[in-house]
């Protein structure tokens, strides 16, 4: 197939569905229960609904910030190939991975608001989730830092003689960071059970893929680290599940890491602060919309008799209702208590934080505590 990432490329791209969601000739679909197929679709519907609603809230000035993932939803569900006891180190654009692993809609919305119920206590910007109970690691803004951390987690799993694996997500822009390299190299040497999942969505804010690297592909980096590199159609959910399953199996067997490059596209702006019309041709996203991962997967499910417009409408209603309720529930929440501002810098408050806390509490509050 032609490579739509814009780069000259001679490496194969793993695909299972064509752009219309029809099984490609001679290709076998990975083995998934029907219920899972529907549930995966459901998660993509939820992801899209959440993105839509959160961006609207942001536009209304009710959220400080948001990042959509329109067109990249299939990549989130690579985590389908994992077990619950495997670990995920996400970047900031894999909402569906959180939902699939059990992160609640209401928790998501609370985190967006940074309110008193936000699991991270309003300490980071929106989209910086953390869920230790789901083995999902706290997101941070500096890109790439999670990649060597994933290797460390995988090395720990190895040392404990478990067959768990760690999967880490990052963008193709992030693969230019030093952290990417040191992580890949260390994982190769230690044969760490880690899956490096590169979402190549063509853009890093305003920097196109062609200015990000002269390599023919990002997957081609893998060879230099002695691990397999796989390019997969990032808008083809089944292909993603298949290659991730293979990588996971390899890691569990003790054969080490894999680099997966999922070729997809960031249809909208980088974040709520971005305006892509300044730097890219509007025709580019239009072309990619024809390869929409939801459309393709919907068509596939429809062919299999697993999806109908009615069923999808029900899903949408269900999710929108849940989101609406979650948003409404944020109307009267308070900000996290100012008393907790100094907690968890350390396990216990050292004297200087005790003192600073007392100082802060002694000042009159500049805003009412429930405004956030």
């Amino acid at each position: 197939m032609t490579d739509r990432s814009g780069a000259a490329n001679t490496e194969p791209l793993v695909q299972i569905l064509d752009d219309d969601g029809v099984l490609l000739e001679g290709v076998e679909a990975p083995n998934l229960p029907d219920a899972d197929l529907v549930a995966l679709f459901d998660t993509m519907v939820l992801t899209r609904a959440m993105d839509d609603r959160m961006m609207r809230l942001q536009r209304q000035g009710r959220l400080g910030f948001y990042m959509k993932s329109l067109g990249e939803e299939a990549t989130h569900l690579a985590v389908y190939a994992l077990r619950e006891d495997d670990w995920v180190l996400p970047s900031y654009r894999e909402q569906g991975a959180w939902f699939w692993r059990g992160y609640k809609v209401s928790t998501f919305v609370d985190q967006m608001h940074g309110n008193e119920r936000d699991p991270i206590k309003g300490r980071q910007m929106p989209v910086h989730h953390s869920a230790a109970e789901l083995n999902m690691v706290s997101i941070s803004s500096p890109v790439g830092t999670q990649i060597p951390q994933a290797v460390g987690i995988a090395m720990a799993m190895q040392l404990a003689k478990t067959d768990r694996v760690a999967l880490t997500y990052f963008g193709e822009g992030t693969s230019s960071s030093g952290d990417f390299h040191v992580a890949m190299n260390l994982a190769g040497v230690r044969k760490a059970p880690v899956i490096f999942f590169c979402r190549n969505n063509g853009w890093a804010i305003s920097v196109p893929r062609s200015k990000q690297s002269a390599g023919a592909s990002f997957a081609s980096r893998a060879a230099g680290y002695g691990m397999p590199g796989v390019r997969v159609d990032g808008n083809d959910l089944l292909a993603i599940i298949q290659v991730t399953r293979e990588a996971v199996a390899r890691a569990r067997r003790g054969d080490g890491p894999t680099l997966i490059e999922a070729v997809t596209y960031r249809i909208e702006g980088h974040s709520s602060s971005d305006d892509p019309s300044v730097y890219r041709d509007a025709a580019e996203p239009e072309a990619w919309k024809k390869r929409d991962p939801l459309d393709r997967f919907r068509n596939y499910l429809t062919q299999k008799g697993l999806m109908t417009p009615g069923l999808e409408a029900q899903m949408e209603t269900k999710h929108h209702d849940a989101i609406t309720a979650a948003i409404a529930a944020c109307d009267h929440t308070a900000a996290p208590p100012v008393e907790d501002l100094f907690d968890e810098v350390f396990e216990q408050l050292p004297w200087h934080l005790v003192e600073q806390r007392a100082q802060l509490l002694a000042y009159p509050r500049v805003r009412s505590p429930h405004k956030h």
Partner: protein
Amino acid sequence: MPTMNIIQAVNDALSIEMRREPKMVLLGEDIGKFGGVFRATSGLFEEFGGDRVIDTPLAEGGIIGAAIGMALYGLRPVPEIQFADFIFPAFDQIVNELAKFRYRSGGQYPCPVVIRTPYGGGIRGGHYHSQSPEALFIHTPGLKVVIPSNPYDAKGLLLSAMRQNDPLLFMEPKRIYRASRGEVPEGDYTVPLGKAKLVREGDQVTLIGYGSMVPILEEAAEKAAADGISVEVIDLRTLLPFDLETLITSIKKTGRGVVVHEAPKTAGFGAELVASICERAMQYLEAPIQRVCGFDIPFPYTLEHEYMPNSDRILSAVHTTLEW
């Protein structure tokens, strides 16, 4: 005279110098067609082209490493680090290489790189779009550090920075990037490095700050005036080498001081200011110099207004020093 905000003033300085100095090169993430995430380089890619306004891959260490190489070869690179919070992947290149190149080569290799980076909180940026790491660079011999607080100084200081021959970190107060507006002369002028600015005269307490804290100091001074307290306000502008003379002169007059910065208090630049002043003017001090700083916690999101020094906290420190 046109009215500008700080971003426009920075943009103006960059384009004046790009026209004047063919050796000048800009590089960084998203600085090209996009004109930078804060639009500080807006229009420069169009005017000077992709060879002199270079969008780099996402790697701060590469940006600064390449800028160093360019400077060694004789160019005048002015790299941008998108947020000061993201300067740390380049930290080794900055503190071990950039800062030491001239010295370690016995003067053979000067390295005049001016790093521009927006810093500071108050924009709902949470942990990683709010930090103020100036103290780390002030503590690194070989670097100059400059922070403007208004459009006029931003343009004049940046022009000075780009025309001197030492590595220099130019930190821009992003909280007031657009909010701080003022008259800025067209064309060329410079504001000298190493000189603080007396923003407001007073004789009871000296307030010392820089960057986005300066408007807050002025606000505090107004409030103090309303309480009948006469407060002097000093904007440091250059943090290294800082203008100790101006501080000492003021402290000798007032006998009392409050130092303010957003960065965490412990081992922040405020400590140096206090120590330097005490070393030379302790006998003039009627009270210990107070520090009003960020707390020693990672920069928070929802409660950032609790974290940031504000005029009430400063006012309360003014009272503390007066009542001591």
